[in-house]
């Protein structure tokens, strides 16, 4: 008996070993190395200049630009995530109802996600161009004045959020669709027999049952949103040297990290920003797990 168990255990270890190995090399090691860098004065090219304790962290906590970037990130994240969740649930319902060509529609929904973020960002930055952008041209057709999208926080948030929504809605819709298809038909039909409207069925039967998937999607989009970089960086007309507009009005945390690490060559401070961001993501993960721990008992009517 014992022999069988240990052999089974060996097999399990063998099976997860590749993942653990890859995770150790590309996940754990960079994490620890970044933590090490964040307590040292580290010049990007020149390397290590010695231990500085928590000086980088002290500087970060008193750094208004960091909080400003964090505020921008959260605003973009809230707009993008809210729109994304609603749209992807709606899309999933539509796909769930589709009787013909569902596979085709699913592929179409996934298309924006396959396009590299850089390409998406470059195209959207042109769409939102001040002088020759399509969005302003459309606004002009309906009689609204041109908007200098990059010049104001609110307009830049919208532009960046639009890119994020464009890229991730289809992907999230597929996740929700997969969950919806596991909802037992009998429950839906029973509710319909009881005279529940479509909306009522969705709200009281489908949604509670796909709750774990919605929770996961939310977690992924928040974690992704906290790390958003390519879209806002390339939304800045100045490109790589941009700092999120002329007044950092749409600089996100990772853009700030990039500015510090690759613009000012202060890799130690960039590592500090990076670790703080990691802690934020982890904290959100914990909160999320707590809130969505399990469906409330007695869910449904």
């Amino acid at each position, binding site marked *: 008996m014992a022999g069988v168990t240990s052999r089974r255990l060996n097999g399990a270890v063998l099976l997860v070993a590749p993942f653990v190995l890859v995770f150790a090399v590309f996940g754990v090691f960079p994490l620890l190395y970044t933590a090490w860098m964040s307590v040292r*004065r580290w010049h*990007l*090219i*020149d390397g290590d200049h010695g231990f500085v304790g928590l000086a980088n962290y002290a*500087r970060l906590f008193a750094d208004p630009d960091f909080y400003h970037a964090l505020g921008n990130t959260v605003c973009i994240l809230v707009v993008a995530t809210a729109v994304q969740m609603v749209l992807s649930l709606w899309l999933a319902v539509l796909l769930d109802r589709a009787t013909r060509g569902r596979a085709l529609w699913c592929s179409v929904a996934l298309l924006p996600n396959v396009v590299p973020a850089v390409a998406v960002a470059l195209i959207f*930055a*042109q769409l939102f*161009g*001040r*002088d*020759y952008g399509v969005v302003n041209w459309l606004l002009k057709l309906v009689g609204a004045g041109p908007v*200098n999208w990059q*010049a*104001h926080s609110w307009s830049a948030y919208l532009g960046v959020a639009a890119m994020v929504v464009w890229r991730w809605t289809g992907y999230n819709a597929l996740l929700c669709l997969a969950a919806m298809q596991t909802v037992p038909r009998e429950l839906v039909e029973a509710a319909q027999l009881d005279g529940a409207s479509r909306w009522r069925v969705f709200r009281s039967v489908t949604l509670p049952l796909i709750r774990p998937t919605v929770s996961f999607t939310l977690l992924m989009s928040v974690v992704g949103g906290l790390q958003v970089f390519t879209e806002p960086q390339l939304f800045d*007309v*100045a*490109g*790589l*040297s941009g*700092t999120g507009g*002329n*007044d950092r009005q749409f600089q996100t945390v990772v853009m700030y990290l990039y500015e510090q690490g*690759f613009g*000012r*060559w*202060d*890799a130690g*401070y960039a590592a500090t920003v990076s670790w703080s961001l990691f802690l934020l993501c982890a904290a959100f993960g914990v909160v999320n797990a707590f809130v969505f721990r399990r469906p409330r008992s007695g869910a449904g009517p």
Partner: protein
Amino acid sequence: MRQRRTTGLITALWTVLAIVLAGCADTGGGRVEIVVATFGEFGYEPLFTEYERLHPDIHLVGRVSDFDSHHRDLITALAVGRGAADVVAVEEQYLPRMRQVKDKFVDLATYGAGDLRPQWAPWKWEQGLAGPTVLGLGTDMGGLAMCYRRDLFAAAGLPTDRDEVAKLWPTWDGYAATADRFAERSPGAKFVDSAGTIYTAIVNQGEQNYFAKADDSFIGDTNPRIRRAFDVAAGLATRKRTAGVTTFTQPWNVAINQGAFATITCPAWMLAQIKQSGGAAGTGNWDVTSIPEGGGNWGGSFLTVPAQGAHPREAYEVARWLTAPEQQKALFLHDAILPSEPAVYHDPAVLGHTDPYFADAPVGRIFAASSDQVRPNYRGLRDADVRPKFGLALGRVEDGTQSVDAAWEQAVREARETLRWPG
């Protein structure tokens, strides 16, 4: 049967792998491959063919990107110790910081670069040094002139002859007054591309800007030249004389192509950029004249050899050849890339050169003839940290989100703040 199929599959995989590896390793066809990384318009492509003809054992590969990506790529490559091209152009703005990490570059003196010294104007040669180390060989320099659209000037009722135009703006105040005259008659186009180019030109007309030449202390807030440059440029912005397009960006290219602005300060290397953005259809639209308040220098680059490359000697030979007088002359005649070597800019063929794209402007006389007066501006060690703050401030004025004084105060505050921390 099953066994054999597996063996066959593995053999096939190995074959594919071998072909891929062979393909990757063999691109040079047995020749030594030297990658030359530049940004913007260096005009090197025709020279590469020539060099390969002279050196059949060398295969030259050009890698061109935009200014920011190019320098960021170099920095990343230096940080991780691999990935840099064999020969890399470095613009003078980045030189002070590259000097700090000079051991990441080959000291070109080890291959005899010291003997080349008399080739360059003395200041250009000295810029390429880091102590006794020869960090880079000078390529071009950025003598200043003003480019203007003849067609837009004519439409606005302004003179189009380049000497007459020069008389409109002996000073920057004259330039601003011309901008107002232009705006009255020609509301369709703006007078200048952005506040930033005017600002940079005025700043670069001085010998020192943000940092004192004597002790490298920050003088950005007290140097009258900086404040004056800021006020002239911001004044143009508040009166809506600028098109508000950032240099070298996509909107800037489009604006040139569409004739959205009438003037731009033209360091010599700008001509090639305008030609490229304007396209063949723009021939004859632009002309070149002198800039208010005399010359100045904006930019200029150096060819360096990162120490991580596999073929430093061959790379040095390429850099030496590309910066040699014959090639500098060819580059000027072809692309108006202004040489930094007296023997070249005193050459009659260079002095007499005209450019048909710019309405046959005597670019040789305009740029090369004033080259002896070109002086470098002192670049402080932290120049790259401070400089962008003032550019962004002008951007805020241009966007209309801040007043001139508030933008200036914020720029100075941000500059001081960034200097508080080690860079």
